[in-house]
């Protein structure tokens, strides 16, 4: 299974997409994000936050195949 990357709101607009499937290679979150930004440089204009498998990511976690990674700006619900 690939690593699935999701975008919402401002990051979906900046990436021009809502979803991206990456290879199944194990990577760190930092490496994954850097590679996504390289491909979608407008993302670098935003403060980014991350979730791994629907949990807020605290540090530089390791991402494995089948994981769901979300890239988004600070939330603004309420």
């Amino acid at each position: 299974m690939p690593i699935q990357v999701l975008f919402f709101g401002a990051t979906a607009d900046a990436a021009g997409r809502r979803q991206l499937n990456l290879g199944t290679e194990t990577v760190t979150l930092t490496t994954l994000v850097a590679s996504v930004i390289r491909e979608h440089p407008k993302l670098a204009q935003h403060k980014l936050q991350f979730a791994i498998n629907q949990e807020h990511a605290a540090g530089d976690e390791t991402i494995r195949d089948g994981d769901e990674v979300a890239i988004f700006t600070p939330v603004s619900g309420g």
Partner: protein
Amino acid sequence: MPIILAELDRLIVKPTVDFCELTSLPIDIGGAARRAVPPECGATVTLDGYVRQFTNGRETLYLEYEAYEPMAFKEMQKLIDHAKREFEVSTIGIVHRLGRLEIGETSVVISVAAPHRKAAFAACEWLITELKRTVPIWKKEVYADGEQWIEGDHA
């Protein structure tokens, strides 16, 4: 929201009335507030957030809310679990609207029922503060001359 159906050989139904919802339909505030009134309770505190017409003097035409839905549910449920450990409250309901909202429409309702109102006020205020910090929902403000995703809590 676990429902314990059986304990030992006796059937024990524990009706759990907490609820969290994401909806693209208008929210019935009174309905949310009264959905759960446990018999031991005396007060419900409800926070009702809605679309401001003016923010920093700029007029908003309408809003659009988007959520990372499965994670938003998990985060709302975590807030409910945490609030029920920290505050002496009986029932918590959170409803957040998604999609397009007109000026004055309710975007979020948080209702907290408690035996004593002090805990209900404290828990409700804590819940809205945390929801705006942790639940993955984003707001886009649409103006006459453009639009903007709001990044972070500016409320």
